[in-house]
Protein backbone atom coordinates (compact mmCIF):
# COMPACT_ATOMS: atom_id res chain seq x y z
CA UNK A 1 0.00 0.00 0.00
CA UNK A 2 2.66 2.52 1.02
CA UNK A 3 4.87 1.47 -1.85
CA UNK A 4 1.96 1.86 -4.27
CA UNK A 5 1.28 5.42 -3.17
CA UNK A 6 4.98 6.32 -3.39
CA UNK A 7 5.09 4.95 -6.94
CA UNK A 8 1.94 6.93 -7.77
CA UNK A 9 3.42 10.12 -6.34
CA UNK A 10 6.66 9.73 -8.28
CA UNK A 11 4.90 9.04 -11.57
CA UNK A 12 2.51 11.96 -11.04
CA UNK A 13 5.43 14.30 -10.34
CA UNK A 14 7.24 13.03 -13.42
CA UNK A 15 4.23 13.70 -15.64
CA UNK A 16 3.84 17.24 -14.25
CA UNK A 17 7.53 17.86 -14.96
CA UNK A 18 7.03 16.59 -18.49
CA UNK A 19 3.99 18.88 -18.97
CA UNK A 20 5.56 22.05 -17.64
CA UNK A 21 9.26 21.69 -18.47
CA UNK A 22 9.13 22.80 -22.14
CA UNK A 23 7.22 25.97 -21.24
CA UNK A 24 9.52 26.80 -18.33
CA UNK A 25 12.55 26.24 -20.59
CA UNK A 26 11.28 28.74 -23.17
CA UNK A 27 10.72 31.35 -20.47
CA UNK A 28 14.21 30.78 -19.04
CA UNK A 29 15.80 30.88 -22.50
CA UNK A 30 14.32 34.32 -23.15
CA UNK A 31 16.32 35.81 -20.26
CA UNK A 32 19.55 34.13 -21.32
CA UNK A 33 22.39 36.47 -22.22
CA UNK A 34 24.10 34.06 -24.63
CA UNK A 35 23.98 34.45 -28.39
CA UNK A 36 22.61 30.97 -28.94
CA UNK A 37 20.04 29.01 -26.95
CA UNK A 38 22.24 27.26 -24.44
CA UNK A 39 21.98 25.85 -20.99
CA UNK A 40 22.85 26.58 -18.29
CA UNK A 41 22.21 30.30 -18.94
CA UNK A 42 25.36 32.39 -19.02
CA UNK A 43 23.73 35.45 -17.47
CA UNK A 44 20.52 37.40 -17.06
CA UNK A 45 19.66 39.73 -19.89
CA UNK A 46 16.74 41.50 -21.48
CA UNK A 47 18.47 41.87 -24.83
CA UNK A 48 16.09 39.45 -26.58
CA UNK A 49 13.14 41.49 -25.42
CA UNK A 50 14.82 44.55 -26.91
CA UNK A 51 15.36 42.53 -30.09
CA UNK A 52 11.67 41.60 -30.09
CA UNK A 53 10.57 45.20 -29.62
CA UNK A 54 12.83 46.47 -32.39
CA UNK A 55 11.69 43.82 -34.86
CA UNK A 56 8.77 45.21 -36.88
CA UNK A 57 7.78 41.74 -38.09
CA UNK A 58 7.41 40.46 -34.52
CA UNK A 59 5.65 43.49 -33.07
CA UNK A 60 3.39 43.76 -36.12
CA UNK A 61 2.45 40.09 -35.78
CA UNK A 62 1.81 40.57 -32.07
CA UNK A 63 -0.59 43.46 -32.65
CA UNK A 64 -2.36 41.65 -35.48
CA UNK A 65 -2.87 38.68 -33.14
CA UNK A 66 -4.32 40.94 -30.47
CA UNK A 67 -6.68 42.64 -32.93
CA UNK A 68 -7.85 39.39 -34.54
CA UNK A 69 -8.27 37.83 -31.08
CA UNK A 70 -10.35 40.73 -29.78
CA UNK A 71 -12.59 40.90 -32.84
CA UNK A 72 -13.05 37.12 -32.98
CA UNK A 73 -13.74 36.85 -29.24
CA UNK A 74 -16.27 39.70 -29.34
CA UNK A 75 -18.09 38.24 -32.35
CA UNK A 76 -18.02 34.68 -31.00
CA UNK A 77 -19.45 35.95 -27.70
CA UNK A 78 -22.24 37.91 -29.39
CA UNK A 79 -23.16 34.89 -31.53
CA UNK A 80 -22.49 32.10 -29.03
CA UNK A 81 -24.26 33.53 -25.98
CA UNK A 82 -27.80 33.65 -27.48
CA UNK A 83 -27.18 30.20 -28.97
CA UNK A 84 -26.35 28.85 -25.50
CA UNK A 85 -29.47 30.50 -24.05
CA UNK A 86 -31.53 28.94 -26.82
CA UNK A 87 -29.99 25.52 -26.17
CA UNK A 88 -30.40 25.55 -22.39
CA UNK A 89 -33.72 27.38 -22.04
CA UNK A 90 -35.76 26.91 -25.22
CA UNK A 91 -34.75 23.89 -27.26
CA UNK A 92 -36.64 20.71 -26.44
CA UNK A 93 -36.12 18.48 -29.47
CA UNK A 94 -32.96 17.49 -31.33
CA UNK A 95 -30.83 18.84 -28.53
CA UNK A 96 -27.87 16.56 -29.18
CA UNK A 97 -27.80 17.52 -32.87
CA UNK A 98 -27.81 21.21 -32.00
CA UNK A 99 -25.05 20.78 -29.43
CA UNK A 100 -22.89 18.86 -31.92
CA UNK A 101 -23.45 21.56 -34.55
CA UNK A 102 -22.26 24.21 -32.11
CA UNK A 103 -19.24 22.15 -31.03
CA UNK A 104 -18.38 20.95 -34.55
CA UNK A 105 -15.60 23.50 -35.13
CA UNK A 106 -13.88 22.19 -31.98
CA UNK A 107 -14.44 18.50 -32.76
CA UNK A 108 -13.43 18.60 -36.41
CA UNK A 109 -9.69 18.57 -37.19
CA UNK A 110 -8.58 22.18 -37.50
CA UNK A 111 -6.36 21.60 -40.51
CA UNK A 112 -9.33 20.20 -42.38
CA UNK A 113 -11.54 23.14 -41.43
CA UNK A 114 -8.78 25.49 -42.55
CA UNK A 115 -8.45 23.76 -45.94
CA UNK A 116 -12.23 23.71 -46.37
CA UNK A 117 -12.43 27.43 -45.63
CA UNK A 118 -9.49 28.20 -47.93
CA UNK A 119 -11.27 26.58 -50.88
CA UNK A 120 -14.57 28.15 -49.93
CA UNK A 121 -13.28 31.70 -49.59
CA UNK A 122 -11.34 31.50 -52.83
CA UNK A 123 -14.18 30.00 -54.83
CA UNK A 124 -17.36 31.73 -53.86
CA UNK A 125 -16.37 34.59 -51.71
CA UNK A 126 -13.71 37.13 -51.19
CA UNK A 127 -10.36 35.43 -51.62
CA UNK A 128 -7.65 35.86 -49.03
CA UNK A 129 -6.54 39.38 -49.85
CA UNK A 130 -8.14 40.96 -46.77
CA UNK A 131 -8.27 40.13 -43.08
CA UNK A 132 -11.91 39.05 -43.33
CA UNK A 133 -11.33 35.32 -44.06
CA UNK A 134 -8.86 35.09 -41.18
CA UNK A 135 -11.26 36.76 -38.76
CA UNK A 136 -14.24 34.68 -39.93
CA UNK A 137 -12.16 31.51 -39.50
CA UNK A 138 -11.23 32.56 -35.98
CA UNK A 139 -14.86 33.34 -35.10
CA UNK A 140 -15.85 29.85 -36.27
CA UNK A 141 -13.24 28.00 -34.22
CA UNK A 142 -13.74 30.06 -31.05
CA UNK A 143 -17.55 29.79 -31.05
CA UNK A 144 -17.60 26.37 -29.26
CA UNK A 145 -15.68 27.75 -26.28
CA UNK A 146 -18.21 30.53 -25.72
CA UNK A 147 -21.10 28.11 -26.23
CA UNK A 148 -19.70 25.57 -23.74
CA UNK A 149 -18.89 28.10 -21.03
CA UNK A 150 -22.15 30.04 -21.25
CA UNK A 151 -24.27 26.86 -21.36
CA UNK A 152 -22.59 25.53 -18.24
CA UNK A 153 -23.10 28.90 -16.51
CA UNK A 154 -26.79 28.71 -17.42
CA UNK A 155 -27.07 25.15 -16.15
CA UNK A 156 -25.73 26.27 -12.81
CA UNK A 157 -28.47 28.87 -12.65
CA UNK A 158 -31.93 27.41 -12.01
CA UNK A 159 -34.62 28.51 -14.47
CA UNK A 160 -36.83 29.21 -11.44
CA UNK A 161 -34.90 32.43 -10.75
CA UNK A 162 -36.02 33.82 -14.09
CA UNK A 163 -39.55 32.48 -13.65
CA UNK A 164 -39.81 34.23 -10.28
CA UNK A 165 -38.93 37.54 -11.94
CA UNK A 166 -41.53 36.92 -14.63
CA UNK A 167 -44.19 36.04 -12.03
CA UNK A 168 -43.42 39.29 -10.27
CA UNK A 169 -44.31 41.14 -13.44
CA UNK A 170 -41.00 41.62 -15.28
CA UNK A 171 -41.09 41.33 -19.06
CA UNK A 172 -39.00 38.56 -20.63
CA UNK A 173 -36.37 41.07 -21.71
CA UNK A 174 -36.32 42.79 -18.33
CA UNK A 175 -36.06 39.43 -16.52
CA UNK A 176 -33.08 38.54 -18.69
CA UNK A 177 -31.39 41.91 -18.35
CA UNK A 178 -31.92 42.36 -14.62
CA UNK A 179 -31.77 38.76 -13.36
CA UNK A 180 -30.27 36.22 -15.74
CA UNK A 181 -27.60 38.34 -17.38
CA UNK A 182 -25.95 39.58 -14.15
CA UNK A 183 -25.86 35.99 -12.90
CA UNK A 184 -24.25 34.51 -16.03
CA UNK A 185 -22.08 37.54 -16.77
CA UNK A 186 -18.94 35.93 -15.36
CA UNK A 187 -19.60 32.88 -17.54
CA UNK A 188 -19.92 35.07 -20.62
CA UNK A 189 -16.73 36.98 -19.80
CA UNK A 190 -14.90 33.67 -19.25
CA UNK A 191 -16.16 32.36 -22.58
CA UNK A 192 -14.92 35.53 -24.28
CA UNK A 193 -11.50 35.22 -22.65
CA UNK A 194 -11.16 31.55 -23.61
CA UNK A 195 -12.15 32.50 -27.15
CA UNK A 196 -9.44 35.15 -27.16
CA UNK A 197 -6.80 32.66 -25.98
CA UNK A 198 -7.84 30.10 -28.60
CA UNK A 199 -7.65 32.72 -31.32
CA UNK A 200 -4.39 34.18 -30.02
CA UNK A 201 -2.72 30.73 -30.06
CA UNK A 202 -4.17 29.48 -33.33
CA UNK A 203 -1.82 28.29 -36.07
CA UNK A 204 -3.74 26.08 -38.48
CA UNK A 205 -6.50 28.49 -39.44
CA UNK A 206 -4.15 31.47 -39.59
CA UNK A 207 -1.59 29.67 -41.71
CA UNK A 208 -4.03 28.98 -44.53
CA UNK A 209 -6.35 31.97 -44.28
CA UNK A 210 -4.02 34.86 -43.52
CA UNK A 211 -3.77 37.59 -46.10
CA UNK A 212 -0.56 37.44 -48.11
CA UNK A 213 2.21 39.42 -46.47
CA UNK A 214 0.66 39.47 -43.02
CA UNK A 215 1.20 37.12 -40.13
CA UNK A 216 -0.04 36.56 -36.61
CA UNK A 217 2.37 35.92 -33.74
CA UNK A 218 2.11 32.09 -33.84
CA UNK A 219 2.66 32.14 -37.61
CA UNK A 220 5.63 34.48 -37.25
CA UNK A 221 7.07 32.12 -34.62
CA UNK A 222 6.32 29.08 -36.76
CA UNK A 223 8.15 30.55 -39.77
CA UNK A 224 11.00 31.71 -37.57
CA UNK A 225 11.52 28.36 -35.86
CA UNK A 226 11.80 26.50 -39.11
CA UNK A 227 15.01 28.31 -39.96
CA UNK A 228 16.32 30.00 -36.86
CA UNK A 229 16.31 29.34 -33.13
CA UNK A 230 17.64 32.62 -31.83
CA UNK A 231 16.25 33.70 -28.46
CA UNK A 232 14.14 36.52 -29.93
CA UNK A 233 11.58 33.77 -30.53
CA UNK A 234 11.87 32.84 -26.86
CA UNK A 235 11.15 36.43 -25.82
CA UNK A 236 8.12 36.56 -28.13
CA UNK A 237 6.91 33.21 -26.75
CA UNK A 238 7.35 34.35 -23.17
CA UNK A 239 5.32 37.50 -23.78
CA UNK A 240 2.60 35.34 -25.29
CA UNK A 241 2.71 32.85 -22.39
CA UNK A 242 2.61 35.73 -19.91
CA UNK A 243 -0.45 37.20 -21.55
CA UNK A 244 -2.20 33.80 -21.52
CA UNK A 245 -1.34 33.25 -17.86
CA UNK A 246 -2.74 36.66 -16.93
CA UNK A 247 -6.00 35.77 -18.65
CA UNK A 248 -6.09 32.35 -16.96
CA UNK A 249 -5.58 34.04 -13.59
CA UNK A 250 -8.40 36.46 -14.37
CA UNK A 251 -10.67 33.54 -15.33
CA UNK A 252 -9.81 31.81 -12.07
CA UNK A 253 -10.63 34.98 -10.12
CA UNK A 254 -13.97 35.77 -11.72
CA UNK A 255 -15.28 32.33 -12.57
CA UNK A 256 -13.10 29.58 -11.13
CA UNK A 257 -10.79 27.56 -13.32
CA UNK A 258 -12.38 24.27 -12.30
CA UNK A 259 -15.72 25.33 -13.73
CA UNK A 260 -14.18 25.65 -17.19
CA UNK A 261 -15.24 22.77 -19.39
CA UNK A 262 -13.53 21.46 -22.48
Amino acid at each position, binding site marked *: MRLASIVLLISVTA*VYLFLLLPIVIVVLASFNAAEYLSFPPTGLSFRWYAAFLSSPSFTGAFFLSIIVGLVAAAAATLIGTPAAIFYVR*FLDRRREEFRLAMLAPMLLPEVLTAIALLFFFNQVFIGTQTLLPLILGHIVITLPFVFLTVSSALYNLPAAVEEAARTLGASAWKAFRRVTFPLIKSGIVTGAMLAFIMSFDNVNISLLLKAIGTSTLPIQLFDYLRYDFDPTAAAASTIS*VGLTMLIVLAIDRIYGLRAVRF
Partner: protein
Amino acid sequence: MTEASEIRMRQWLFAAPALLLVGLFVLIPYINIGIMSFRTPSTTAPYGPGFTIANYIHILSDSLYLSLLAETLLFATTTTAVCLVLAFPVAFHLARTTSRWRGLLYAGVLSPLLTGVVIRCFGWIVLLANNGLVNQALGTLGIGPFQLMYNATGVTIALVHVFLPLMILPLMNAIQSIDPHLEEAARTLGASRTRVFQRIVLPLILPGLQSGVILVFVLAASAYVIPMLLGGGRVQTLPTVMVQQLMGGLLWPFGAALALVLSFAVLASVWAFALLGRKRMRRLA
Protein backbone atom coordinates in the same frame (compact mmCIF):
# COMPACT_ATOMS: atom_id res chain seq x y z
CA MET B 1 -49.70 33.11 -36.98
CA THR B 2 -50.65 31.69 -33.59
CA GLU B 3 -49.06 33.14 -30.52
CA ALA B 4 -47.22 29.91 -29.71
CA SER B 5 -45.55 29.70 -33.10
CA GLU B 6 -44.64 33.37 -32.88
CA ILE B 7 -42.85 32.71 -29.61
CA ARG B 8 -41.08 29.73 -31.18
CA MET B 9 -39.98 31.94 -34.06
CA ARG B 10 -38.60 34.51 -31.67
CA GLN B 11 -36.76 31.77 -29.75
CA TRP B 12 -35.13 30.50 -32.93
CA LEU B 13 -33.82 34.00 -33.57
CA PHE B 14 -31.45 33.39 -30.63
CA ALA B 15 -29.88 30.46 -32.45
CA ALA B 16 -30.05 31.92 -35.96
CA PRO B 17 -26.68 33.73 -36.05
CA ALA B 18 -24.80 30.71 -34.70
CA LEU B 19 -26.56 28.27 -37.02
CA LEU B 20 -25.88 30.58 -39.94
CA LEU B 21 -22.20 30.80 -39.01
CA VAL B 22 -21.77 27.03 -38.65
CA GLY B 23 -23.85 26.32 -41.75
CA LEU B 24 -22.09 28.81 -43.97
CA PHE B 25 -18.53 28.38 -42.72
CA VAL B 26 -18.42 24.73 -41.62
CA LEU B 27 -21.13 22.67 -43.29
CA ILE B 28 -20.96 24.16 -46.78
CA PRO B 29 -17.13 24.29 -46.92
CA TYR B 30 -16.96 20.63 -45.85
CA ILE B 31 -19.47 19.62 -48.53
CA ASN B 32 -17.43 21.69 -50.93
CA ILE B 33 -14.25 19.74 -50.05
CA GLY B 34 -16.13 16.57 -50.92
CA ILE B 35 -17.10 17.95 -54.32
CA MET B 36 -13.63 19.38 -54.89
CA SER B 37 -12.04 15.95 -54.44
CA PHE B 38 -13.87 14.74 -57.58
CA ARG B 39 -12.79 17.69 -59.74
CA THR B 40 -10.28 17.32 -62.52
CA PRO B 41 -6.84 18.83 -62.00
CA SER B 42 -5.67 21.78 -64.04
CA THR B 43 -2.31 23.39 -64.59
CA THR B 44 -3.60 26.94 -65.00
CA ALA B 45 -6.39 27.15 -62.42
CA PRO B 46 -6.95 25.54 -58.99
CA TYR B 47 -9.16 22.92 -60.68
CA GLY B 48 -10.44 22.01 -64.10
CA PRO B 49 -13.91 21.49 -65.52
CA GLY B 50 -15.72 18.18 -65.13
CA PHE B 51 -15.51 15.41 -62.57
CA THR B 52 -13.34 12.35 -62.11
CA ILE B 53 -12.40 9.70 -59.56
CA ALA B 54 -8.78 9.76 -60.75
CA ASN B 55 -7.62 11.62 -57.61
CA TYR B 56 -8.73 8.78 -55.36
CA ILE B 57 -7.32 6.13 -57.69
CA HIS B 58 -4.01 7.98 -57.72
CA ILE B 59 -3.83 8.06 -53.89
CA LEU B 60 -4.97 4.49 -53.32
CA SER B 61 -2.64 3.02 -55.93
CA ASP B 62 0.44 5.01 -54.98
CA SER B 63 2.50 3.31 -52.29
CA LEU B 64 3.95 6.68 -51.29
CA TYR B 65 0.59 7.99 -50.09
CA LEU B 66 -0.44 4.67 -48.58
CA SER B 67 2.75 4.51 -46.52
CA LEU B 68 2.25 8.15 -45.49
CA LEU B 69 -1.24 7.26 -44.33
CA ALA B 70 0.06 4.24 -42.42
CA GLU B 71 2.77 6.37 -40.80
CA THR B 72 0.25 9.06 -39.80
CA LEU B 73 -2.04 6.49 -38.19
CA LEU B 74 0.94 4.89 -36.46
CA PHE B 75 1.96 8.25 -34.98
CA ALA B 76 -1.61 8.76 -33.78
CA THR B 77 -1.80 5.26 -32.25
CA THR B 78 1.53 5.56 -30.45
CA THR B 79 0.63 9.02 -29.16
CA THR B 80 -2.74 7.81 -27.88
CA ALA B 81 -1.23 4.79 -26.15
CA VAL B 82 1.53 6.78 -24.42
CA CYS B 83 -0.97 9.51 -23.42
CA LEU B 84 -3.23 6.87 -21.89
CA VAL B 85 -0.41 5.42 -19.80
CA LEU B 86 0.80 8.85 -18.61
CA ALA B 87 -2.69 10.25 -18.03
CA PHE B 88 -3.89 7.51 -15.68
CA PRO B 89 -1.82 8.30 -12.57
CA VAL B 90 -2.33 12.07 -12.93
CA ALA B 91 -6.07 11.78 -13.54
CA PHE B 92 -6.43 9.46 -10.56
CA HIS B 93 -4.39 11.69 -8.31
CA LEU B 94 -6.14 14.87 -9.42
CA ALA B 95 -9.60 13.36 -9.03
CA ARG B 96 -9.01 12.03 -5.52
CA THR B 97 -6.50 14.37 -3.93
CA THR B 98 -7.55 16.52 -1.02
CA SER B 99 -4.34 18.54 -1.11
CA ARG B 100 -4.72 22.29 -0.81
CA TRP B 101 -2.53 22.61 -3.92
CA ARG B 102 -5.28 20.97 -5.92
CA GLY B 103 -6.23 24.18 -7.75
CA LEU B 104 -2.63 24.73 -8.71
CA LEU B 105 -2.26 21.12 -9.87
CA TYR B 106 -5.34 21.52 -12.01
CA ALA B 107 -3.89 24.70 -13.49
CA GLY B 108 -0.73 22.70 -14.19
CA VAL B 109 -2.70 20.36 -16.43
CA LEU B 110 -4.78 23.11 -18.00
CA SER B 111 -2.10 25.69 -18.71
CA PRO B 112 -0.16 23.68 -21.32
CA LEU B 113 -3.47 23.36 -23.13
CA LEU B 114 -3.80 27.13 -23.14
CA THR B 115 -0.24 27.72 -24.32
CA GLY B 116 0.23 27.84 -28.07
CA VAL B 117 1.33 24.69 -29.89
CA VAL B 118 4.23 26.51 -31.54
CA ILE B 119 5.60 27.62 -28.17
CA ARG B 120 5.40 24.12 -26.75
CA CYS B 121 7.20 22.76 -29.81
CA PHE B 122 9.83 25.45 -29.34
CA GLY B 123 10.38 24.20 -25.78
CA TRP B 124 10.96 20.70 -27.08
CA ILE B 125 13.34 21.96 -29.75
CA VAL B 126 15.45 23.60 -27.03
CA LEU B 127 15.34 20.39 -24.99
CA LEU B 128 15.85 17.80 -27.70
CA ALA B 129 18.31 19.45 -30.10
CA ASN B 130 21.67 17.77 -30.63
CA ASN B 131 23.25 20.28 -28.26
CA GLY B 132 20.01 20.64 -26.32
CA LEU B 133 19.41 20.35 -22.62
CA VAL B 134 18.67 16.62 -22.60
CA ASN B 135 21.80 15.73 -24.53
CA GLN B 136 23.88 18.08 -22.37
CA ALA B 137 22.55 16.40 -19.24
CA LEU B 138 23.24 12.95 -20.68
CA GLY B 139 26.68 14.16 -21.76
CA THR B 140 27.69 14.97 -18.19
CA LEU B 141 26.81 11.36 -17.36
CA GLY B 142 29.00 10.25 -20.24
CA ILE B 143 26.16 9.01 -22.46
CA GLY B 144 25.04 10.16 -25.87
CA PRO B 145 24.55 12.43 -27.68
CA PHE B 146 21.41 10.98 -29.20
CA GLN B 147 19.46 12.16 -32.21
CA LEU B 148 16.21 13.09 -30.47
CA MET B 149 14.82 15.58 -32.96
CA TYR B 150 14.10 15.66 -36.68
CA ASN B 151 12.92 12.07 -36.39
CA ALA B 152 9.93 10.07 -35.21
CA THR B 153 11.08 10.18 -31.56
CA GLY B 154 10.95 13.98 -31.34
CA VAL B 155 7.65 14.19 -33.16
CA THR B 156 6.09 11.57 -30.87
CA ILE B 157 7.35 13.27 -27.70
CA ALA B 158 5.88 16.61 -28.76
CA LEU B 159 2.61 15.01 -29.90
CA VAL B 160 2.23 13.32 -26.50
CA HIS B 161 3.01 16.56 -24.71
CA VAL B 162 0.53 18.63 -26.68
CA PHE B 163 -2.38 16.21 -26.39
CA LEU B 164 -1.80 14.73 -22.91
CA PRO B 165 -4.08 17.26 -21.10
CA LEU B 166 -6.91 16.25 -23.43
CA MET B 167 -6.57 12.69 -22.12
CA ILE B 168 -6.17 13.68 -18.47
CA LEU B 169 -9.25 15.94 -18.29
CA PRO B 170 -11.99 13.50 -19.45
CA LEU B 171 -10.38 10.68 -17.43
CA MET B 172 -10.30 12.89 -14.34
CA ASN B 173 -13.95 13.84 -14.79
CA ALA B 174 -14.91 10.18 -15.12
CA ILE B 175 -12.94 9.11 -12.04
CA GLN B 176 -14.37 12.02 -10.06
CA SER B 177 -17.90 10.82 -10.70
CA ILE B 178 -17.22 7.39 -9.14
CA ASP B 179 -18.31 7.11 -5.52
CA PRO B 180 -15.18 5.96 -3.61
CA HIS B 181 -17.50 3.94 -1.36
CA LEU B 182 -18.13 1.60 -4.27
CA GLU B 183 -14.48 0.60 -4.29
CA GLU B 184 -14.39 0.31 -0.51
CA ALA B 185 -17.47 -1.89 -0.55
CA ALA B 186 -15.90 -4.20 -3.12
CA ARG B 187 -12.69 -4.33 -1.08
CA THR B 188 -14.62 -5.14 2.10
CA LEU B 189 -16.38 -7.93 0.25
CA GLY B 190 -12.98 -9.46 -0.43
CA ALA B 191 -12.07 -8.26 -3.93
CA SER B 192 -8.38 -7.71 -4.61
CA ARG B 193 -7.11 -4.32 -5.79
CA THR B 194 -6.71 -5.49 -9.38
CA ARG B 195 -10.14 -7.03 -9.32
CA VAL B 196 -11.70 -3.83 -7.99
CA PHE B 197 -10.01 -1.91 -10.77
CA GLN B 198 -11.11 -4.38 -13.43
CA ARG B 199 -14.67 -4.88 -12.31
CA ILE B 200 -15.62 -1.57 -10.70
CA VAL B 201 -13.37 1.29 -11.77
CA LEU B 202 -12.63 0.41 -15.39
CA PRO B 203 -16.25 -0.10 -16.51
CA LEU B 204 -17.26 3.18 -14.87
CA ILE B 205 -14.52 5.27 -16.46
CA LEU B 206 -14.75 3.60 -19.86
CA PRO B 207 -16.88 6.39 -21.40
CA GLY B 208 -14.40 9.07 -20.22
CA LEU B 209 -11.50 6.95 -21.39
CA GLN B 210 -13.14 6.50 -24.74
CA SER B 211 -13.72 10.19 -25.32
CA GLY B 212 -10.11 10.95 -24.33
CA VAL B 213 -8.77 8.28 -26.68
CA ILE B 214 -10.90 9.44 -29.60
CA LEU B 215 -10.02 13.10 -29.08
CA VAL B 216 -6.27 12.46 -28.87
CA PHE B 217 -6.27 10.04 -31.79
CA VAL B 218 -8.16 12.39 -34.12
CA LEU B 219 -6.05 15.41 -33.18
CA ALA B 220 -2.75 13.53 -33.40
CA ALA B 221 -3.65 12.11 -36.82
CA SER B 222 -4.44 15.58 -38.14
CA ALA B 223 -1.57 17.43 -36.47
CA TYR B 224 0.38 19.64 -38.84
CA VAL B 225 2.53 22.04 -36.80
CA ILE B 226 4.18 19.43 -34.59
CA PRO B 227 5.54 17.14 -37.35
CA MET B 228 6.63 20.23 -39.26
CA LEU B 229 8.66 21.72 -36.41
CA LEU B 230 9.99 18.61 -34.64
CA GLY B 231 10.35 16.67 -37.88
CA GLY B 232 12.23 19.51 -39.55
CA GLY B 233 11.19 18.32 -43.01
CA ARG B 234 12.61 14.88 -42.42
CA VAL B 235 9.37 13.46 -41.04
CA GLN B 236 6.38 13.61 -43.34
CA THR B 237 2.82 12.81 -42.44
CA LEU B 238 -0.30 13.06 -44.53
CA PRO B 239 -1.30 16.48 -43.08
CA THR B 240 2.13 18.00 -43.76
CA VAL B 241 2.14 16.74 -47.35
CA MET B 242 -1.45 17.89 -47.77
CA VAL B 243 -0.84 21.45 -46.60
CA GLN B 244 2.41 21.76 -48.56
CA GLN B 245 0.68 20.68 -51.74
CA LEU B 246 -2.17 23.11 -51.21
CA MET B 247 0.03 26.05 -50.33
CA GLY B 248 2.71 25.35 -52.92
CA GLY B 249 0.89 24.36 -56.04
CA LEU B 250 -2.53 24.46 -57.55
CA LEU B 251 -3.44 20.91 -56.66
CA TRP B 252 -6.77 21.53 -54.98
CA PRO B 253 -8.66 18.44 -56.15
CA PHE B 254 -5.78 16.16 -55.18
CA GLY B 255 -5.33 17.88 -51.79
CA ALA B 256 -9.06 17.58 -51.13
CA ALA B 257 -8.98 13.86 -51.95
CA LEU B 258 -6.00 13.40 -49.60
CA ALA B 259 -7.92 15.18 -46.85
CA LEU B 260 -10.94 12.93 -47.36
CA VAL B 261 -8.88 9.73 -47.42
CA LEU B 262 -7.28 10.77 -44.13
CA SER B 263 -10.63 11.67 -42.55
CA PHE B 264 -12.13 8.41 -43.69
CA ALA B 265 -9.24 6.37 -42.30
CA VAL B 266 -9.40 8.25 -38.98
CA LEU B 267 -13.16 7.83 -38.72
CA ALA B 268 -12.88 4.12 -39.48
CA SER B 269 -10.25 3.70 -36.75
CA VAL B 270 -12.37 5.60 -34.24
CA TRP B 271 -15.42 3.59 -35.17
CA ALA B 272 -13.52 0.31 -34.76
CA PHE B 273 -12.30 1.47 -31.36
CA ALA B 274 -15.78 2.51 -30.23
CA LEU B 275 -17.11 -0.88 -31.30
CA LEU B 276 -14.36 -2.61 -29.35
CA GLY B 277 -15.19 -0.52 -26.31
CA ARG B 278 -18.86 -1.34 -26.50
CA LYS B 279 -18.13 -5.04 -26.72
CA ARG B 280 -15.86 -4.84 -23.71
CA MET B 281 -18.43 -2.84 -21.77
CA ARG B 282 -21.08 -5.43 -22.48
CA ARG B 283 -18.76 -8.20 -21.35
CA LEU B 284 -18.05 -6.39 -18.08
CA ALA B 285 -21.62 -5.44 -17.41
